Every structure is written in structure tokens, then in C-alpha cells.
């Protein structure tokens, strides 16, 4: 058979891609999502520098650098591809710093970063396979290992722009009490006394002029970041709304001296509810995929937060509430499957 002579063959193109369909892709990549989240978290850091001093910037920088370094070194040692460019270690670093009090020693995030990145994420299989939220596992380790620094490192908000005030001041020199601590031990009236009036208190909480962790105090700037993520479609409303509604609801029922007399606004604005609802509970890897599962997940976080705040040993409970709901995620994904197309058939 002399076939080849019959067909005028054309030379093959060089460097032509012959990959699988689809041949067009949405421009939203893992990197873009991660770095957008980092950008949405930045306003909180800027605000905290003015409220708690430059100390917060140093702690955040130490946290981010140690998270990225931990990821790079552990992936190198385990001979896995190094993925620090995807931004997920940076998010973990920022979030870890945000749930640490501003008055702690600057080396404090390092053991937390090793826990968060190496133990919680890399050993479990890397990005996409961790069961627990890495930043919160880092915080849980710090809470267990350095309880004094982690519960006494609160600083009084600065209102005169003296940014350098607390640098290397030492825990004892700066400590004050967090609102939730006051609320737990002195009641709502004790807390209002501290702020002057109820409206001043709401104002200070909303804009972030209250003692607390580095990135959690200002509901206002966190909401801006969270709403950008919602607008971009990177997160859906289901988890943040269910966390906030459930916290407000259970606080309203059980949070006061009698039933149905708690202060839901205070409960949502104080502590890490907004940060947790928009940036931690919505972590893709450690939250359910299906919308009904997400609603139950968020509601569970709210309920556990209120339980810990009211009955537990700690004044704040968002961190442990999320960590307790994380292992339920595979079960929620099993129970709630997306509706199949042909299920609607007659």
C-alpha cells in the first residue's frame, strides 16, 4: 500500500498544546482566591496598628513568615512540591496573628505556626486534606502552652496615635481585661460602666476600640472584607449568616439574667464572631460543600460558642466552637448531597 504518497502531509506545529477540554477556563484560580482573602484581611491589620500599636504589625509579620517558612521547609523535607506561592500559608499566618492578643512576646506565633502548618496541614496531606482549621489549631496550641500570656496579653486601645507604645512592654505592663472577661465576671452592667454608656460601647465595639485579639476587634473593617468576598462569589452567605444568627439567637435566650434577656448585638460584636464567621468558618477545606450542610455547620458554631462563653472556663468560645465542628464536616457532606438532576423526573 502506497498511502503516504497520496496524502500531502503538513508539518506538525511546534509548541501546540493538545490538553483536554474545556479549552477555556475561568480566571478565578486558587492563587487569586487566596490572595484576595489576604487582601480582604489587611484593613484589620492597619486598624489594629492604630488601636494597639506597631506591636501588632511585628507579631503578624513573625506569624506570616514563620508559617511560610514552616511550609517551605516541611515540604522540602518531605520531598513534596513547594506551594508557598498559592497564598494559603500566608492566610494561615495572618489569621493566626489575628487570634493572638497584641501584648504577647513577638516570638509567640512561631510554635503556633509550626502546629498550624506542619502538624495540622502538611502531615494531613497538604492543602485540601486538613480536617481542622490550621490557624485555630495554632491558637489552641498556644492557649494550652502559654495560658498566662494568651489570656493576659490584652492592651488598652490607644486613642492618641502613639503607635510605638506597647513594643516590648512585657505582658505585665500592659494587661487589661477583655470585654467578654468583664461580661463573664462582672455582668453587663459592669461592662457598660467600663465604656461609659451602652451606645458608646456599641460604637467602640463596631469600630474596634475595645481590648481583644489583634484582628478580631473591629466588626466594621472585617465586614468590609467579608462583603468583598461575598460579592466576588468566593464565599456564600450561608456560613457567615448562620454563625451570626445562631450566636445572636442563643445569646438572646440564655445570655441574660433571665431567659430571653441576653444582648445579641453585644454577643455578635464582641470576641471573634465576625472574624470567625467570615474568614475562619468559611475556610473551604474545613467547611461543608453543600448549602444545607453549611447552614447546620454555622448554626452549630454559634450554639457551641454561646455554650462555651456562658458555661465554659473561657470567656471566648469561637475558636473551640469551629474546631469542634470541623470534624463533623465529612459527616455533613455525607448526609447532604446535592440534588441530582434526574431526581426531579416524574
Amino acid at each position, binding site marked *: 500500500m502506497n498511502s503516504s504518497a497520496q496524502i500531502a502531509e*503538513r508539518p506538525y506545529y511546534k509548541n501546540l498544546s493538545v490538553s483536554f477540554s474545556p479549552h477555556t477556563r475561568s480566571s478565578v484560580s*486558587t492563587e487569586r482566591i487566596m490572595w484576595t482573602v489576604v487582601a480582604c484581611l489587611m484593613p484589620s491589620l492597619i486598624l489594629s496598628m492604630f488601636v494597639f500599636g506597631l506591636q501588632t504589625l511585628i507579631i503578624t509579620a513573625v506569624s506570616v513568615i514563620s508559617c511560610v517558612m514552616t511550609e517551605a521547609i516541611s515540604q522540602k523535607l518531605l520531598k513534596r512540591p513547594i506551594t508557598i506561592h498559592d497564598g494559603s500559608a500566608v492566610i494561615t499566618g495572618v489569621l493566626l496573628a489575628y487570634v493572638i492578643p497584641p501584648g504577647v512576646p513577638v516570638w509567640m506565633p512561631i510554635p503556633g505556626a509550626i502546629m498550624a502548618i506542619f502538624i495540622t496541614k502538611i502531615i494531613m496531606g497538604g492543602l485540601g486534606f486538613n480536617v481542622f482549621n490550621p490557624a485555630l489549631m495554632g491558637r489552641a496550641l498556644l492557649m494550652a502552652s502559654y495560658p498566662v500570656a494568651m489570656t493576659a496579653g490584652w492592651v488598652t486601645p490607644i486613642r492618641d496615635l502613639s503607635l510605638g507604645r506597647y513594643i516590648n512592654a512585657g505582658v505585665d505592663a500592659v494587661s487589661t481585661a477583655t470585654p467578654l472577661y468583664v461580661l463573664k465576671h462582672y455582668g453587663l452592667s459592669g461592662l457598660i460602666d467600663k465604656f461609659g454608656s451602652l451606645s458608646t460601647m456599641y460604637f467602640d465595639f463596631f469600630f474596634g476600640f475595645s481590648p481583644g485579639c489583634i484582628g478580631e476587634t473591629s466588626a466594621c473593617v472585617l465586614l468590609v472584607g467579608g462583603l468583598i468576598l461575598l460579592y466576588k462569589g468566593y464565599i456564600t452567605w450561608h456560613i457567615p449568616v448562620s454563625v451570626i444568627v445562631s450566636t445572636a439567637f442563643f445569646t438572646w435566650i440564655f445570655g441574660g439574667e433571665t431567659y430571653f434577656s441576653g444582648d445579641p448585638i453585644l454577643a455578635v460584636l464582641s470576641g471573634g464572631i465576625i472574624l470567625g464567621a467570615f474568614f475562619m468558618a468559611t475556610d*473551604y477545606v474545613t467547611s461543608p460543600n453543600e448549602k444545607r450542610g453549611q447552614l447546620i455547620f454555622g448554626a452549630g458554631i454559634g450554639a457551641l460558642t454561646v455554650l462555651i462563653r456562658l458555661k465554659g472556663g473561657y470567656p471566648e468560645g469561637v475558636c473551640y466552637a469551629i474546631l469542634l465542628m470541623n470534624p463533623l464536616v465529612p459527616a455533613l457532606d455525607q448526609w447532604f448531597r446535592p440534588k441530582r*438532576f*434526574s431526581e426531579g423526573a416524574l
Partner: protein
Amino acid sequence: MNQSFLGDSDLFTALKDGKVKNIANVLPDFPMGGIHPPERKELTEHLPIEVMPDPPQLTLFLKQHVGYPSEVMFNLISELHSPEYYLEDNICKDGACRLDTSEKKQVKAAELIGTTKNKIGASLHSGIDGIVDGVYDTIHPVLGKAPAIIVSKNGQQSSPSFTPKDWTKYSKEALLSKIKAAGIVGLGGAGFPADIKLNVKPNIFLDTLILNGSECEPYLTCDHRVMAEYPEDIIEGAKIILKILGITRCVIGIENNKPDAIKALEDAVANDPNKMGYDIFIQPLTVKYPHGSADQIMQSITDRIRPSGKRSSSIGIIVQNVYTTKTIYDAVALDKPFYERVVTISGRGIARQANLMVKIGTRLSDIVDYLGGTTSDLAKIVIGGPMMGVAVSSLNVPITKTTSGVLFLTREEIGDDQKYGPCIRCGFCLDACPMGLEPNNIGIYVEAGRGAECEQFGFSDDCFQCGSCAYVCPANRPLVQFIGLARIKVEEAKKKEEN
């Protein structure tokens, strides 16, 4: 027999009153999943259909459709040898005979060169006046190599002429045999022989014909141009199909981004001198990918959902592509076989974009030469649309009956398609999948070597490879291919269990 289907009676009453398009300005839509990729139809949507001159050579695959390969016409085989000669050493594995080049035979344009016996298959016609060189294993975009008849042009540009005849007197059987003789297959991409699809058993209840003009794939505009330029032919074709099916109502669904096509077809329906008692409606649809999938367009227009694993006729509907309808009109009224089709040549990697009328079997190299060559930043050649098409590495592959477009894409248009990362469980694919499957979990299971357990994540038969999941995946994961692999693994596991 269930003689009525719930959920759509109001729609058809409203359509009869000419109202549906205006109901609260909400267009029919399918509720689950779907994506909005950049359309990029502006490159070609205003370009009229342009006839490309005959290429020097045609490559006609024996199998361009669902079913058995066409068989080479016996009169093309040399009488020097007995038929057994070809069965013994020159036979292709598919049963088609190979010819020696010494047996060159003269053919005219539109002449039958491949035929099908009483089984699922389609006839094949030469598009040019020329010589049959033989049957050779030729480069194929999917199969690697496949047997094809090679026809070389001799002499002049062919110009077969056809005159319209009155088809209304033909019986159903006569209409079907004309469609079969013309070798028409579904042009929406599936390539199922049209005569077999339309030959519905009499005990199946049908009430609606849907003509699919949504053309939801980005870039492609061939159906759009055919609708805009041959609306009367499509309406006549619709009437032919309605006559074959023995039903009276037909809805032509068109995505709302083709206002000129909608207008042209509406005018054609309004000015039709002989409506023959049929109700033909034009229904604009929401612009959303994949609206052109049969399941989605049926649900969108009639609210009926096809049960998994059953045909659309089980819910009383036949879906046919608008361009197929036009070729059916050509076959029946003009006796014109299906040997040429409109193909969208688009993308920024070619010197000139066009909606080209080309002979089936024309090689891409001839099209590229005709349109002035490729640009230097060409990065990918895709046969079909960008969502479901096949990338090819060579210009030697030919246009087949189901090729709706050839895209010459630059790096900028395709982005980074080389690497993919781990699943970050964002769940975007769950929101994008029109069939309610779980591509994320199927991908993770397949990567872990547990593809056989994937039936829990949705009936793998339901995936029609629309690519919506992979389009939205931020980690660039090849989810369509993972699902395809899972399907194979599930079938393997089932076979093992049976044995």
C-alpha cells in the same frame, strides 16, 4: 399509556397567545447549575456564510457518526478481484474494504461513495468531482488513526444543482428513506443518524418537537448564521419532521443573544404560506451554558425532566438541532445529500475568521491556506467548541459531519492549561454542574485509585462532559476526565461482580 405530561400546559397556551416571551421579562431557564463563559461570538456572528472553493483532496472517514462505519460502494471496488480478496488481507478491522490506488474510480460531486445496510449507520457522499484514491488509515482527532476514503479533485470546481420539489405529498416512509439516503446525522455534536432518531416506534407517545438553536458553546456561530440566512428552510424542515413524527407542535429554542436569528425565524413563521396545521413557536432562552444540552433545553421549555438512562422520547419530546433540520429540508425537498456544511472558523490565532461552507472531508490545512494562514502566537487548535471540543496537533485532520467549528486559539485565550493543583473543596463545581453531580469528590476518589466507588456521587451516565465543573475549578483540575475515568472504573467493577 400516559397521554399527558404535567407542568407544561400553561406554557403552550401562553405560547399560542404569543405571550411567553413577555412573562415578567423572564426567559425560560434551567434551574440547576450552568456557567457564563465569555461568549467571544462577536468574532464571527456578523459574517455571512462564505462558500469555500473545492479543496484538492477530501478525507472522508468511514465512521463520522454513531453506529457502524459506512461501507465503500461496491462499484468503486475493482472487479479484477473477487469480494473475498478484500475480506482476507486488505480488510480494515471495521469491515470496510481498502482499495489499491491502481483502482482509481471517477466520482461526481454529491455521488454516493459509502453506504449503510439495514443497521445504524449513515451514507457518505463525495463533495467534489474527482477520483477515489482508496481507503487509508488516516490521522483522526480522537482515535489516532481511522480508515477514510481519499478523493482527489480532478478538473473544475464542482457545481451540482438542485431544484426544490413539493415534498408534502411524500409518505412518512418516503421522507425517512430520503433522509437516510442523504446521510444526515445529528449536527449538534452527537452524530446520531437522523433517520433512526426520527423513526420513533408507534407505541411511544410524543407531543413536542424541540428544535435546538441555542448554540451555547462560546465562539461557535454556524447555527446562528444558518438560522439568520435560511429561516424558511428550517421552518420547512420542522414541518417535515412534524409530519414524520405525526405531531403538531414544535418549539424552536434560541438563546437570547441571537436577536437577528430570532427575528428571521419569527418572520419566516409569520409569512409561511402553507402552515399545514402545525404550531411552530420561536422561544428565546436565557443565555447560559449549557443551554444547548438536550436535558437542559427540554427542562427549560417544557419543565419535563428526563429520567436517568432513558431517552428523551420517554417524556414525549424529540430534540433536533436547527442545522440538522435545514439539512433534512435539503435532503427531502432538493434531494441534496449531506456533503457540505457550515463550519465556524474562529479564534485569534488565524488571519481571518469566517463562517465557511466547506465540503465534508476538507482538511484543516486547506482551510488555513484559504483564510490566509495562522498567526505566530497560535497555541491550540480545537475541533468543536472550547468547552467540549478536541484539541488536535496537526492540520492534516479533516472536517467531519459533526464538526461545527475549528478554533485557532492563542495563549491569551486559553490561559494556563498545563498544571493542576489539589482540590481546595471550594464547591464551585457543585454549583456549576447542571446534572447535580459531585465532580470534586469524584476527582479526589479517582486520584486515590478508588474510582469504582464513585457511583455515590451521582449517576455517571448523567455526565455529558459539558465541562462546566472544570471551567470554574480554581485549581484547574481535569474534572471531566476524572468523571470519565470513574465511569470506566464503575463499569469494570460491575462486570467483575457479575463474573
